[in-house]
């Protein structure tokens, strides 16, 4: 009975051990992915910074600001919501936070009687919203593990023309902002209409004799769509880095828990084994006691069969007593 319990515990310890190995491996993989995602984020920054500064310069020299991406479409009944979740779980509250934030935004729109259009990135948000019957206009999968600029472009291509056509009043991005490996923040960011800060007195003076080919407005019209893409791309990179960081944390605590569980189970198992040994000893001792007590009177004892007196002739007091029978 006791031995059975020990065996069950041993099996559980083994399974906890192999789970621990898996979570440890996932933790290490996630850790390298965080670094990679950060590198990509850093590599993407020069482009984003340059494009931003060029746009600011253009607006300052008086490029036309009538571009639809710079307009808030007051007459539009709908708003675009881009929700960036992950394809895989095992990353703590990463997805549930994003989904909760998105749902809150949706509820707010509904309360105001406004319409919304959902652009979903990642399998987790997709299955959540599909199960609850939310209409999703576009779903993008296989993105957040390692986002590429092409994928950001696809999202932008799905959203931007409709915004330009005046279908959405504005557009929000909901994603995890990556601050550092230890800190991320789920944010709701409005990214359309683009806001250009003007009249910054500290801005460097632009030479008025700047040459343009084609006109400033023509260049701005080419630039703005790319700026939208760059914004989405940087959000994707942030989300990706945050996802891996969240997974690393979740897997680390899973590994720690497995370690703790293993220690506890080992302790329980050792106690069970000790218990069964103690019981056995008690039984043997008890048996021996019984033997010692019954030595004088009881004749048909196992010990006597095992140790027949003729084999131990020197054991005289015993010989005297039992030889009569044999």
């Amino acid at each position, binding site marked *: 009975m006791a031995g059975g319990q020990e065996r069950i515990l041993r099996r559980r310890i083994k399974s906890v051990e192999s789970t621990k190995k898996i979570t440890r491996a996932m933790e290490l993989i996630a850790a390298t992915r965080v670094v990679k995602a950060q590198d990509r984020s850093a590599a*993407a920054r020069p*482009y984003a910074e*340059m494009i931003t500064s060029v746009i600011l310069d253009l607006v300052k020299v008086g490029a036309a600001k009538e571009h639809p991406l710079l307009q808030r479409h007051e007459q539009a009944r709908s708003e675009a919501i881009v929700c960036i979740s992950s394809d895989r779980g095992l990353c703590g509250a990463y997805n549930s936070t994003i989904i909760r934030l998105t749902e809150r935004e949706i509820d707010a729109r509904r309360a105001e009687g406004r319409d919304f259009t959902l652009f979903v990135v990642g399998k987790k948000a997709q299955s959540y919203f599909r199960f609850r019957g939310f209409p999703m206009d576009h779903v993008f999968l296989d993105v957040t593990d390692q986002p590429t*600029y092409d994928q950001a472009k696809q999202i932008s291509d799905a959203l931007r023309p409709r915004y330009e056509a005046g279908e959405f009043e504005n557009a929000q991005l909901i994603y995890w902002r990556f601050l550092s490996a230890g800190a991320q923040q789920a944010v709701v960011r409005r990214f359309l209409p683009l806001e250009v800060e003007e009249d910054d007195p500290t801005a460097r003076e632009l*030479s008025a*004799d700047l040459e343009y*080919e*084609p006109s400033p407005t023509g260049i701005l019209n*080419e630039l703005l769509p790319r700026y939208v*893409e760059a914004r989405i791309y940087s959000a994707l990179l942030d989300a990706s880095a945050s996802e891996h960081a969240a997974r690393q944390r979740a897997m680390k605590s899973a590994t720690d828990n497995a370690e703790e569980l293993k220690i506890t189970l080992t302790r329980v198992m050792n106690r069970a084994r000790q218990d069964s040994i103690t019981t056995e000893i008690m039984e043997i001792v008890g048996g021996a006691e019984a033997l010692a007590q019954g030595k004088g009177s009881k004749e048909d004892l196992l010990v006597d069969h095992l140790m027949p007196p003729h084999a131990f002739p020197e054991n005289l007091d015993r010989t005297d007593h039992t030889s009569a029978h044999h």
Partner: protein
Amino acid sequence: MALQVELVSPERVVLETEADMVRARTIGGGDIAFLSGHAPFLGALDTATITIRPAGGGNDIVAAVHGGFISVNEDVVRVLSDLAELAADIDTERARRAEERAQDAVRRGDDTEAEAALRRAHARLTAVGGI
């Protein structure tokens, strides 16, 4: 004094070097070359090649760019492009196949997308010197 050249795509900085001359093609403006001391300039790029003549001699660096921008200010030349590929990184065979595919599509009377693909393939092949 040499020009400071940065070739930047959204995903990374493709090239950072010093050059004596940079030649690019802008939308509607044709080819334009920049030497040291050029007036400030901002242009939208066509799908074509960019030629960079390295400072202090050496072979020209050729890259295919598919749209994007070039800004010149105080001897700093910045090229921003959705897709910027150095000639060394271009798979000639693949570009050739893409060109054939695009030509077929254009012959069949397909849309502007096929024409854009053809232009991209041309730019790549020009960059590697295949045309």
